[in-house]
C-alpha cells in the first residue's frame, strides 16, 4: 500500500543538560508517520516516549537541545525552529497534544467553554459569537451532551472522563492534522477509557486525523493502533503493524513487554518481570542498550549496536537475532501463546 508521509523524523538526537552532565534522551531515532494512520508508541516509563512527542511540538524543557537530525513536516524542518512564535504557528493548528492528566490540564478558574474558545480565537482568529459557536461545536464533536449549557461550567463540575473529552475538544477545535495523545486514559476507569478510545478512533476517521498515541498499556495499543513503535532507552527497537507486533514480534524487548502483561498471568505463579533496570543515559551505551537485561543477548550485542533488519515492508527490528549468523531462538511462551489466543 502506498501511503503519503505526513511527518518524518530522521536521525534525531535530543540531549538534556542536567547539572553539567549530558543526558542522551533520544538516540538517533528515525520514524515516518503516514497520513491518517494511528501510530502507537510503547515503552516503559523513562524510555523517552513523551520526550519524543514533545520534541515534535518544541515543548521540551529549556535545558534540552537537539543534537542532530531533522523533523520534516510538509516543507519545514521542525528541528530547526528556535523561536517560540514559530512554534506557536505549529502547535494547536498543525499538531496538537492531549496530555495525560485531565485533572491538571485545564484551568480551574475559567469555564471550560472559554478554554476551548481561547484555542479557537488564537489559532483561527475568531472572536465573540463565532468563536463561541465553534467551541460549542467542538464540545458536541467529542460527545458532550447539552454543550451550550456545559460551555459556561467550570472544570470541577466535570468528571474525569468528561474533562478528558474537553481537553480533546480543545486539541481538535483548530482542526490540527496530527493529534498526539500522551497516555490520555491512564488516569481513567476502564469503561471511561473504552469510551475515550472510541472517541479518538471516531475523530480519526471523521476528520482524517493522524494520531500518535503514547501508552504503556498494550491492551490500549491493540485497540487503537494501526502501527506500533516500541521504544527502549531513547530509541525505537521494533516498528511494525499492530498484527506484526502482537503476533510476530521479533525483538526480545517486545517479547518481554508482551510477557509482562497481567492479562496473561497464571494464578499462583509470579508475573513476569524484566530483570535489571533501564540503562543510564548519562553514559554512552556500548552495543545494544537492552543487552544487559536480555536473556537472548548474543556476544555481539555488548559490542556493537544492531542495525535495523527489515522483516517485511512494514516491519523493522533492531536486533542482532535477525542477522543470518545468529542462532535460531525460541521466543518465550507468552509472545508465542499470543499467536494462538482467540
Amino acid at each position: 500500500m502506498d501511503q503519503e508521509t505526513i511527518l518524518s523524523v530522521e536521525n534525531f538526537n535530543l540531549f538534556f543538560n542536567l547539572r553539567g552532565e549530558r543526558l542522551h534522551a533520544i538516540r538517533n531515532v528515525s520514524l515516518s508517520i503516514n497520513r491518517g494512520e494511528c501510530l502507537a508508541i510503547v515503552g516503559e516509563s523513562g524510555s523517552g516516549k513523551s520526550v519524543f512527542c514533545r520534541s515534535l511540538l518544541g515543548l521540551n524543557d529549556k535545558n534540552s537541545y537537539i543534537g542532530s537530525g531533522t523533523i520534516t513536516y510538509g516543507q519545514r524542518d521542525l528541528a530547526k525552529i528556535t523561536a517560540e512564535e514559530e512554534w506557536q504557528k505549529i502547535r494547536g493548528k498543525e499538531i496538537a497534544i492531549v496530555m495525560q492528566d485531565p485533572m491538571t490540564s485545564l484551568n480551574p478558574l475559567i469555564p471550560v467553554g472559554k478554554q476551548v474558545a481561547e484555542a479557537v480565537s488564537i489559532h483561527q482568529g475568531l472572536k465573540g459569537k463565532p468563536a463561541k459557536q465553534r467551541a460549542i461545536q467542538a464540545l458536541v464533536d467529542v460527545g458532550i451532551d447539552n454543550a451550550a449549557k456545559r460551555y459556561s461550567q467550570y472544570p470541577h463540575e466535570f468528571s474525569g472522563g468528561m474533562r478528558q473529552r474537553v481537553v480533546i475538544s480543545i486539541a481538535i477545535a483548530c482542526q490540527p492534522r496530527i493529534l498526539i495523545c500522551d497516555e490520555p486514559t491512564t488516569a481513567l476507569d476502564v469503561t471511561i477509557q473504552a469510551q475515550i478510545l472510541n472517541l479518538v478512533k471516531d475523530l480519526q476517521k471523521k476528520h482524517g486525523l493522524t494520531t500518535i498515541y503514547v501508552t504503556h498499556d498494550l491492551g490500549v495499543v491493540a485497540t487503537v493502533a494501526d502501527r506500533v513503535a516500541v521504544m527502549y532507552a531513547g530509541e525505537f527497537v521494533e516498528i511494525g503493524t499492530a498484527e506484526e507486533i502482537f503476533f510476530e514480534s521479533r525483538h526480545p524487548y517486545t517479547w518481554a513487554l508482551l510477557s509482562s502483561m497481567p492479562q496473561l498471568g497464571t494464578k499462583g505463579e509470579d508475573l513476569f518481570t524484566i530483570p535489571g533496570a533501564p540503562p543510564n543515559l548519562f553514559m554512552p551505551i556500548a552495543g545494544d542498550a537492552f543487552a544487559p537485561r536480555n536473556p537472548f543477548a548474543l556476544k555481539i550485542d555488548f559490542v556493537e549496536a544492531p542495525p535495523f533488519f527489515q522483516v517485511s515492508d512494514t516491519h523493522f527490528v533492531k536486533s542482532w537475532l535477525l542477522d543470518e549468523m545468529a542462532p535460531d531462538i525460541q521466543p518465550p511462551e507468552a509472545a508465542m501463546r499470543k499467536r494462538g489466543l482467540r
Partner: protein
Amino acid sequence: MIMRQPETLLEIDNLSVGFGRGKKLYIAVQDINFAIYKGETFGIVGESGSGKTTLGRTIMRLYNPMKGEVRYDGKRITGRLPKSEDKALTRKIQMIFQDPMSSLNERAKVDYIITEGLLGRKDVSKEEALEAAKSAMASVNLPWDFASRYPHEFSGGQRQRIGIARALVMEPEFIVADEPIAALDMSIRAQILNLMSSLQRERGLTYMFISHDLSVMRYFCDRIAALHKGKVVELASAETMFSKPLHPYTAALVNAIPQPDPTIQRSKHHVAYDETLEHDYSKQQPSFREIETGHFVLANDKEAIKYEKIAKGQL
C-alpha cells in the same frame, strides 16, 4: 491453590456509610454484606465514585458506619471500642495506599516512617522497633542503607515498597490495599504484585485489594465483588466473574478491558451500562441473591430467573 475450609476473617453486615446529614446526606456505601476468608485475596472493583475507597476506609475504622457493622474474627470493630482492643486492631489491620508519592512523610527518614506505628508503644522498645524495621525492609527487598534516606530519593516502586514495609512492621493479619499499583509503571506493577503474593504465602496474610483494573484482578484475586453506586452488584470467584459475568454492569466492565490482541479489539463492540435501561425495578426492588454456589448478584425475581438460566448455560 490449596483447597481449604474457608474460615471467615472479616464480615461486613448490612453496612451503610454516609456523609453529611439532612438534605445534604450522601450515602456512599449502601447495605453491603459479604465475608472475607482467612488467607484469601478479596477484590473490590468499581468505577471511581462507586464507594470502593469509602468501604476500605470504613474497614480501616477511619469512617464510622451509618448503619450495620463490620466484624473481625467474630468481634465488632466499628463504633466505640475499648482502648486495648482498639490498639490490637490497629496492629492487625493495616493499609497500603494508592499513591506512593504522597503517602509517605516527606520530612521523615525511612526508618522513622517504617517504625512510626511501633513507637510510643509500651511493649516495644526502640531497639526492638528498629529490629522490626530491619526485617520489614528485608522482606520487601530494600537494603538497610536506605533507612537513613528521605522519601524523595526513591523511585515510585521503591516508595511503594517502603509503604508495604510500613504496613508489615506491625505484623498485620489483614491488609487493605487501596489501588496499590495504579500509580506505578507497568514493569514495576508486576514486581509489586509478585512481592505482595510472596508475602501472602510467607505470612498467611489476607488482602482486600481495591482496584479499577480488572485485568490485574483476574490474576491476583480469589474472589471479587463489583461495586456500583455504593452497592455490591455481583460477587463471585475471580474466574467466574470474568468468564460468566451475570450483572450487566459487571459485563460492561469485563467487556471494557482492552485485550492485547488487535483482531479481538477491532471487532469488539463497546457496550455502555445504563442502569435505567437495563433494569425495571418499578414492580420489585432488587436484593442480593445467590444464583449459583458462591455467585451472588443483585437482582429482583424476574432478573434472578434470567440470570439462573444464563448461569446454567440455557440462554
